[in-house]
């Protein structure tokens, strides 16, 4: 599938400091974003797409580092479910990210990298940055906010905290409350980074030494959680990597080991280790019910948006039960909601992969 050439790829500087849930604020926030399609004269065709943890603004354009097609190329483009001949699609690198938006790897006002001086942020803070971007672009309402995984959490946070902003909210393979198992995996990833001597309490920028090994291990562990047992078995089984026999050593004998090592090794080329700490921290903190004094339904009583909640039967990281709980809360709040568990073999990553049923659901939800 050909990448859609972006019509813009820009970095916008916010004039006002961005207030944060922690009580701190960040001055000089920059937001890197891309847009596709044309903004209608009535400004009523905006679809805001929020990316997942290790995604970025290169939604449907070639990634500048990996040279690969955009992460949702199959979903976004002319005639595709998020149809760029109809919608003006915006995707911004999240606050705390490392592809041009302000994050721990970007420069603080003192001209040095923020590193761990960057304030701990939340999902709602990420959405604050998204909303500030829309404000600056003169967009007061969006036709839809769409996201998978951490992107879905942002979509929900936007609906709960800016109830007038979005007319439609599409949350794929997401959750309204981060469960313990996910917090646990996120902690493993962070500890892998922080245990690497190259991390240097986060001050590795410009030292020629970065926590590459730790970040790779974090990615390898996380990557397993994005797949399914069935997909790993089908893809690799117990097959050996370019050899006929086991080596009785600790080389990557198995294909699955080699694959994971490759995933880890290439990840460090495009992702900042400190960003990984901040983004997973934000996810661990995410609990829309807690924000609303314990009752999730209360998060959605003020919005008039229509919701669509999608889960996948093979996703054990964000299992269907999380989406069902969300759908029930939306029902209890009287919000118009659709909820469907789709069958797909790819685990959590199903939202990024070839699942024709997802295309139909997205198309249908955005059509009405």
């Amino acid at each position: 599938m050909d990448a859609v050439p972006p019509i813009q790829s820009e970095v916008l500087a916010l004039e006002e400091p961005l207030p944060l849930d922690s009580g701190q604020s960040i001055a000089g926030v920059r937001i890197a974003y891309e847009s596709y399609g044309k903004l209608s004269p009535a400004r009523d065709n905006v679809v805001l797409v929020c990316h997942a943890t290790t995604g970025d603004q290169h939604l449907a354009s070639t990634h500048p580092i990996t040279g690969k097609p955009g992460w949702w190329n199959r979903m976004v483009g002319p005639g595709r479910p998020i149809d760029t001949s109809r919608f003006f699609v915006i995707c911004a690198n999240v606050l705390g990210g490392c592809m041009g938006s302000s994050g721990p790897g970007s420069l603080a006002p003192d001209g040095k990298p923020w590193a761990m001086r960057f304030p701990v942020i939340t999902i709602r803070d990420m959405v604050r940055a998204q909303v500030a971007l829309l404000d600056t672009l003169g967009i007061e309402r969006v036709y839809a906010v769409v996201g998978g995984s951490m992107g879905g959490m942002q979509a929900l946070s936007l609906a709960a905290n800016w109830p007038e902003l979005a007319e439609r909210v599409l949350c794929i393979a997401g959750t309204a409350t981060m469960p313990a198992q996910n917090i646990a995996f996120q902690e493993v990833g962070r500890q892998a980074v922080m245990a690497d001597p190259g991390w240097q309490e986060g001050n590795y920028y410009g030292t020629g030494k970065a926590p590459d090994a730790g970040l790779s291990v974090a990615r390898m562990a996380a990557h397993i959680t994005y797949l399914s047992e069935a997909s790993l078995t089908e893809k690799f089984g117990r097959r050996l990597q370019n050899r006929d026999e086991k080596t009785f050593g600790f080389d990557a004998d198995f294909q699955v080991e080699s694959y994971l090592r490759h995933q880890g090794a290439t990840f460090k080329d495009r992702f900042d280790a400190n960003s990984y700490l901040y983004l997973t921290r934000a996810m661990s903190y995410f609990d829309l019910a807690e924000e609303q004094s314990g009752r999730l339904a209360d998060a959605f009583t003020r919005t008039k948006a229509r919701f669509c909640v999608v889960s996948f039967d093979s996703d054990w990281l964000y299992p269907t039960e999380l989406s069902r709980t969300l759908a029930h809360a939306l029902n209890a709040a009287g919000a118009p909601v659709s909820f469907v568990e789709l069958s797909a073999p790819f685990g959590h990553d199903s939202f990024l992969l070839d699942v024709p049923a997802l295309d139909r659901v997205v198309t249908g939800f955005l059509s009405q």
Partner: protein
Amino acid sequence: MSQLRPDLALIAAHVAPGARVLDVGCGDGSLLEALRGKGCDARGMEIDPGDVEACVAKGLSVIQGDADADLEFYPDQSFDYAILSETLQTMMRPAQVLDELLRISRHAVVSFPNFAHWRVRLSLLTGGRMPVTRLLPVAWYETPNIHHVTIADFLALLAERGITMEQAWYLSGDKQIGAGLANLRAEHAIYLLAR
């Protein structure tokens, strides 16, 4: 609405325009589409994922759920009509589902195939086996209809539960018939209920 199943067409015709409606067991969403056409706030619940996907692809608000378990998540009186068409006889706990429908909605519309229709009776009498008819086309070991019900049974349940029958319609061969000897003559019964 000509393509609608006759019982659904009848139901659609009796739902007030603009009403808030929940169609429990909405299938592929054809009733919801008809109701949406009347300006209703029409939502659905369906257990079959393929049907839910088809509904969402049509832009309908449908959640994948099980009426036996998931109706409890709706607040009291959040709908004007809760519709249960051709679904009551598949419920694990039909009586509780009826109670739930009338908790979340001012009215319930319930339709079911009448197991006391003369053709069913005849089939059972002469063949001595569980009837397989036009409205009950599946053999006993595969049918989703785990609680077969007759019109007389249903009316007795309404009386027992203190549920008011506001209106009744009876169908035979897709045509509406009178209430006389309905338990013998009607293949299909549709009730508008309230509490």
